[in-house]
């Protein structure tokens, strides 16, 4: 299951690593790049990145599994990330998550069968001032309540 990256992707990886003092330092941007190309990071991509950067594969695994912005499964078209960390919990972010689960009929970490939505429970999104909050793909939505969530979902259609 050895994955070969395309020559173009390899070239772009080398461009990134050239900007860093060591190849290991380029791990995050390289993973972002690979994910943007392949959609998600499977074990094959982990292995390929480790081999290109000369790292033990475990070093890639620990980074990929640590950050929620890296995904190891294919995502739906809209990635809904709901924060469950301190500020959002105090502002009942749990309610937002429950609402979405009921509405979409999926649990956290799952994708709707039509491949449209993926729901993820995440740690702090760095937007505590607008708790409870969530991200839809790369956009922030704060001060949420179920009605506001419904409106946001309407607009996605």
């Amino acid at each position, binding site marked *: 299951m050895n994955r070969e990256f395309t020559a173009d992707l390899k070239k772009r990886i080398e461009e990134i690593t050239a900007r860093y003092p060591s190849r290991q330092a380029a791990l995050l941007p390289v993973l972002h790049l690979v994910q943007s190309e392949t959609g998600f990071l499977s*074990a094959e991509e*982990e*292995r390929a990145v480790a081999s290109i950067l000369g790292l*033990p*594969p*475990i*070093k890639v695994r*620990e980074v990929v*599994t640590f950050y929620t912005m890296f995904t190891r499964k294919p995502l739906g078209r809209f990635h809904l990330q709901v924060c469950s960390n301190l500020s959002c919990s105090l502002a009942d972010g749990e309610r937002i998550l429950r609402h979405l689960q009921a509405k979409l009929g999926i649990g956290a970490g799952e994708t709707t069968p039509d491949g449209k939505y993926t729901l993820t429970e995440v*740690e702090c999104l760095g937007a505590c001032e607008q708790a409870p909050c969530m991200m839809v793909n790369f956009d922030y939505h704060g001060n949420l309540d179920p009605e506001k969530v419904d409106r946001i979902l309407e607009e996605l259609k």
Partner: protein
Amino acid sequence: MKITIDHLNVDVEGRKSVLDAARESGIYIPSLCDHPRLVPFSGCRLCVIEVRGRRGVVPACGTYAEDGMVVVTSSPSLQKMRLQILDLILSEHPSACLICREKETCEDHKSTIRKVGEVTGCVLCPNNGRCDLQTVVEHLKPDNLHFPALYRDQEIHRKDPFFERNENLCILCGRCVRICHEVRGASTLAFVNRGSQTVIGTALGRPLLDSGCQFCGACVDVCPTGALTEKTVKYETLPDEKKATICGFCSQGCELTIHVKQGRIQASVPAENGPVNRGQACVRGRFLVRDAVHHPRRVLKPLVRKNGRLEETGWDEALGLVARRFAATAPRDIAVFGSAQDPCEDLFILRKFAREGLKTPNLSGVEAFSAPARLLEAAAEQDIAPPLNGRISDIAKSRVILLFGNCPPMVGLEIHQAVKNGARLIVVGGKESPSIRCASAWLKIPGGKEFDLLTGLSKILAGDGHPQNGSGPKGEAEFKKHLQEFKIADAVASSGLPEEKLHRLVQLLEKRRPAAFLFNATFAEGPGGKANIVALWNLALQNQALFIPLGLESNVRGALEIAAHFRDGAPSAREIGRSILGGAFKALYVCGHLPRMERSPAEFMVVQDSYLGDAGEFADVILPATTFVESEGTFVNMEGRLQKFSPAIAPSGEARPGWRIICDLAGTMGLPGFAYEAASAVFEAMAKTVPAFRGLNGLERKAETFVQEPAKESRAFAVRTPSAEEAAPLYEHDPDRYKGLAMSRDIKSLNIVRGHK
């Protein structure tokens, strides 16, 4: 400097954490993530302390002692904080037994045995009684837990050999991750996921077998809980006693602690204060001692061949037969082949018996085919005297390391330390090994072709400069002349490296000092072996490098010193070894392993071994010898370190120590001078006669005693070119062999590890 810990004045030397300083003064601070061999992690926060003049609390493991520091390690508020932390840790660790009010009397009344799949409490945990978490709980004495218990319900990883991983017992202290990365350099484990989802995982979630694990067991030894458990002890209770010994599997001489249960070995773990290994071991020392010593191939009674089959018999009959056959054979038709895995006492008596008892000149042994033996041969021919007592720990201080072939595991750890401190490692030849992973370059030059490369490097390093007037080492003028005649093109051709690469290598050597040069038997054997050694020696002289031959068997160095004492000129031990295999002698006395042969090498062959090995196929008599765990003796490790060990368990069956077998045989033959009572008496006799041991005391176990080296001018260049007449290697050294036991074949778990690539 002086610091105050809980009103106690403590003297602290060097840079030391408050936690270490407290430990040394006998003050216990609860801690779960810190470990003496690891960089402070400050993860568990149990070791929080108050420091006068500082706000809040700080972890003792990550706070270094400063002169005049005043530290409080226990107070009501610290106790409260620690209990809260413990509460959180125990919310995800089976805790019922830890706070059970009847735990004191549980052991007496418990009627269940521990054969359960899942551990739900201490009484069902393999780590019961040796658990750091239990110690912390006993110290902090929580009377209640305040969080609902959560059982993680993770699948237990049982597919790997030797040990299991149970995430449900893991407290995520990270000791296993850090020892694997910081000390072992294997980086097999890591924290996977984040926050409450975190577990200890492997690369790509594969079994350890697929993850580059060496199965050294370091993670198991540092695990504070039962999350990592050795499979063979998981259903056993605590050992009856713990005995110290020296590992007999290789030349490093790691100190091991043998856990003994009802007279048998329960486990072998590396001794924390072992001067060579400092708490580390390899898969052999950590997991195979028990299997090897109690192996079904052990010979438990003397065997004598009758009608073509080996049959058990008594010692008197077996020794009587050997005595009669030896007495009926002319001395020059008898040959003796020693094992370098036997202690000095056995080797001394064996050689004394051959020389003074049998009066045969035909003495050989495994040690004659080792890297240090080849070095000594080459040195004697060139009249140079390289030092042999190089310290393994000095390797870590090097800034560039040239490794020829593979190295033993503890040497590998020192190399890894050096590389971590910024050194460069260049590996030449050898097989795929853990060291390759931290190498800057792996030059796959075929064995025997190293001479040209090394001479080329010497030539570039020497430049065009002329020898300084008389100030240089002996032989310098001749050496420079030799270099002038040498063509770099030859080095380029035989190494396959472009000239520019050679210059880069020389730059590395020039810029980074000190250097360490290490070589194994593959580099030293075969055509060109001695020329390789001399070329490397010259380069080491030019560069003031540490120069270490890597012997493999546990007592190669001791065997060489003893062999040197009993040697009387030609033919050499190597030639005799060849003749033995060639069938030149009528009667043979072989200790341990001989290379596999097609037919019997002699009319009458006696094998003294602990196992029924390959040599047993043709043996007429097999005399059962003890293993290192069952006997008293002395090894000399690759540094020349004298390592005394005592028996940890009684001998299996009727096995006897090697020296005792020979003394009994000499007695049966009516030979005088072999009436030794104990191994210590043999050592005393040896210390009186063998120069390297002169004046050394075998009875005292001193941490640092080294055999003596001849005081001779060693700094001299020499010139030697490869010659084709040297025959191919006779003896293939296998690190997984102990006497007649090929562990990678005969022990299933190691077979899985070695067979798995």
